[in-house]
């Protein structure tokens, strides 16, 4: 249950990933991103996904996926066993993002995190002018029916990384279907980060 990652997100992620790398996608959904990475970067891919129907679609794409919870699913992997671990649009949905991020950084040499920016301008306007919890393309759910458990801004995440001594190697911000270069915390609906520790 995550919003379809947009083509632009997928292209940015693909650009960060090295040819022939090993990739673990946490919350891989229908496997669209992994299938793209196999095609474009010939990666060795493994997915983890909780939804049974999504697993069926992944298997139809020829992907290898474990049906399990990413809150607990990483403990068997040894340190740095993947070149990349991806947490795209799932980071805000896990019960313990702090723990999952720590685990991802242990298991992956580098990790890619993507999440909706809660303080995107249209969200701010809906909150401060409309007086309502925002519904945006990156945050498409009503308050009473949302898989999102945590709400954070791009600025929150950057501060978090600094506090935890996580290195931000690269970042990209996406507004309405295009890259945002300035004031991402205000103008970007989605933030993508390439991290390592």
């Amino acid at each position: 249950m995550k919003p379809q990652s947009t083509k632009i997100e997928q292209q940015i992620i693909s650009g960060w990933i090295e040819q022939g790398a090993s990739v673990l996608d946490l919350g891989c959904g229908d496997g669209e991103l992994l299938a793209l990475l196999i095609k474009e970067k010939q990666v060795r891919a493994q997915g983890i996904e909780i939804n049974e129907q999504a697993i069926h679609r992944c298997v139809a794409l020829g992907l290898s996926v474990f049906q399990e919870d990413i809150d607990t699913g990483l403990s068997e992997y040894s340190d740095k066993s993947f070149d990349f671990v991806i947490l795209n649009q799932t980071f805000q949905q896990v019960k313990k993002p702090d723990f999952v991020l720590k685990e991802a950084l242990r298991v992956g040499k580098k990790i890619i995190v993507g999440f909706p920016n809660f303080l995107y301008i249209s969200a701010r306007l809906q909150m401060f002018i409309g007086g309502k919890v925002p519904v945006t393309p990156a945050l498409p759910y009503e308050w009473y029916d949302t898989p999102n458990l945590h709400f954070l801004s791009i600025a929150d995440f950057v501060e978090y990384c600094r506090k935890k001594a996580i290195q931000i190697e690269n970042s990209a911000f996406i507004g309405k279907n295009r890259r945002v270069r300035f004031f991402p915390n205000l103008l970007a609906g989605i933030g993508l980060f390439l991290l390592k520790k």
Partner: protein
Amino acid sequence: MENTETKHFTFAQPPDELTLESGEKLGPITLAYETYGELNQQKSNAILILHALSGDAHAAGIHKGDAPLGWWNNLIGPGKGIDTDKYFVLCSNIIGGCKGSTGPSSVNPKTGKPYGADFPIMTIGDIVNAQRHLIDYLGIDKLLTVIGGSMGGMQVLQWMVAYPERIHSAIPIATAMNHTPQQIAFNEVGRQAIMADSNWRKGNYYGASKPAKGLAVARMIGHITYMSDVSMAEKFGRRYRTEKEPYKFGAEFEVEGYLRYRGDNFVKRFDANSYLYITKAIDYFNILNGKRLSDIFKGLTAKVLVIAFKSDWLYPAYQSQEIAKACKLAGVDATYCEVNSTYGHDAFLLEIKEEAHLVKHFLSTVSSGNKNGAWQA
């Protein structure tokens, strides 16, 4: 598929008997088997089907002039999950069985009488070793996949550890790396029912009355464990049978009638001693065997698809998750799927739509040599 037939392969002629894990020797050994589809020239499209406790070589199709369809007929056939237009499908009755392979009801060449309780104790390892002889005989170097549910899944796991170089992939379904005390306990009650039948006579009942009541009770217990609370409620409710005899301990409830029918029917087609030997082999099975979970599948290059079913309480999903975990720890390229079903353990025979979808796509990925999805440590 019409006119499928059972063939026989005999090997391990004395003095070259098969040495079993117990150290005892068994030979000659006959394996009953069936094949569907054509083996291609490279002999690279062979799939080995591994049956469960009461199964046999007749996995698919229909025999000439014979009513019962193969036990996995809805999965195996032209255009089905295991497509016999593409693959060469092979299924053999296990040793210890009673459907054409050498078992306790076969004649012991040393005495000229049925083995009975003199049949050597055998293991899942022995069952798989015997199958390997059949694969050799057919000239198949490497199987495209080995697939089976329940005890069939145990044989899959055994293939993965005993002959990893002989398989491209493996599909263990609704199974376990070893039996829990609860699983052993159910089997033991079944065995006790047989042995408590005065007709059992320490296994030497051939040519006399069979321990039919005991075997029927064992099967009734089995059937309870194969279903789920929900599937029983749906199938029987608390409905009464029409021909009931109230308050005489006859079969009043539909569920009683069903279990009696299943039990009585089983006696016609299964041998009580085989039931004892096979359930014991299942209980002995322990792929862990003191090893660490991370070491079991170390170095395995086969791609693995592990399937469990939500309502299966005989082989609960956590046991399949352990298999998936062992794959993960060993860096094996694996998929784990927990299929939603209310059928209980029987789901691996009944929840065909989802199972067929998974198996079909998995097989096409494996057979296209698509290693893209592979992740290796």
